[in-house]
């Protein structure tokens, strides 16, 4: 837990190069083994949802605190216990309602100006697809023991 919070507060040294695949793999695999140790085998759905949260947490920690979307993801994950049911948020009029649908999909998208939203979206997509690639790779290599 300590190493996670210090990793979050240190700035991403390569903001233009994007998050390192290796760091992402390390974080996610570590989170996976933690989920395996702490979730009872009987609750399959619960474990699936925990793995999903671990995926977004690993993504966000690896992207670092320099991105608005990663900060929003971590805020959402850390306040999960205290959250009420998701109510539709009224978009701030200063940010404008351009690209409303996109604002709802990108974490933290509601409070951004249009330009920032487009930049954050690009980074978010890169990290999301990297995460998907990683998870697919783990599934493929783990499935190779099958019949």
């Amino acid at each position: 837990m300590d190493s996670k919070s210090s990793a979050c507060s240190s700035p991403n040294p390569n903001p233009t190069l994007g998050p390192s695949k290796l760091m992402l793999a390390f974080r996610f695999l570590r989170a996976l083994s933690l989920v395996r140790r702490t979730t009872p085998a009987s609750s399959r759905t619960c474990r699936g949802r925990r793995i999903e949260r671990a995926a977004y947490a690993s993504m966000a920690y690896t992207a670092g605190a320099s991105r608005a979307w990663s900060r929003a993801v971590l805020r959402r994950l850390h306040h999960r216990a205290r959250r009420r049911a998701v109510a539709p948020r009224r978009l701030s009029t200063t940010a404008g309602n351009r690209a409303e649908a996109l604002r709802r999909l990108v974490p933290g998208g509601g409070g951004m100006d249009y330009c920032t939203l487009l930049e954050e979206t690009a980074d978010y997509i890169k990290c999301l697809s990297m995460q998907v690639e990683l998870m697919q790779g783990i599934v493929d290599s783990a499935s190779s023991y099958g019949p």
Partner: protein
Amino acid sequence: MPVEMSSRRSSRITDEEISELISKLQSLLPESRRRSMSRASAAKLLKETCSYIKSLHREVGDLSDRLSDLMSTMDSGSPQAEIIRSILRS
């Protein structure tokens, strides 16, 4: 007059900047989605981007379920786990 010109110039720069950002989003779309987007408007590209993000979210969810299933096969009692264990024993 100079004030008018400078505001026109700055809005042109912002428009260029925005269209650059939108083409960057277009370049991030996978090949299968990019095919129909070659002469698409900004609005259409944003719509396709939204659709792409939703599909990525779904993939994360599906892969999480599959990883959970794979963890189950590692737990005791499953035939695959038995196979792995017997290999490790030999």
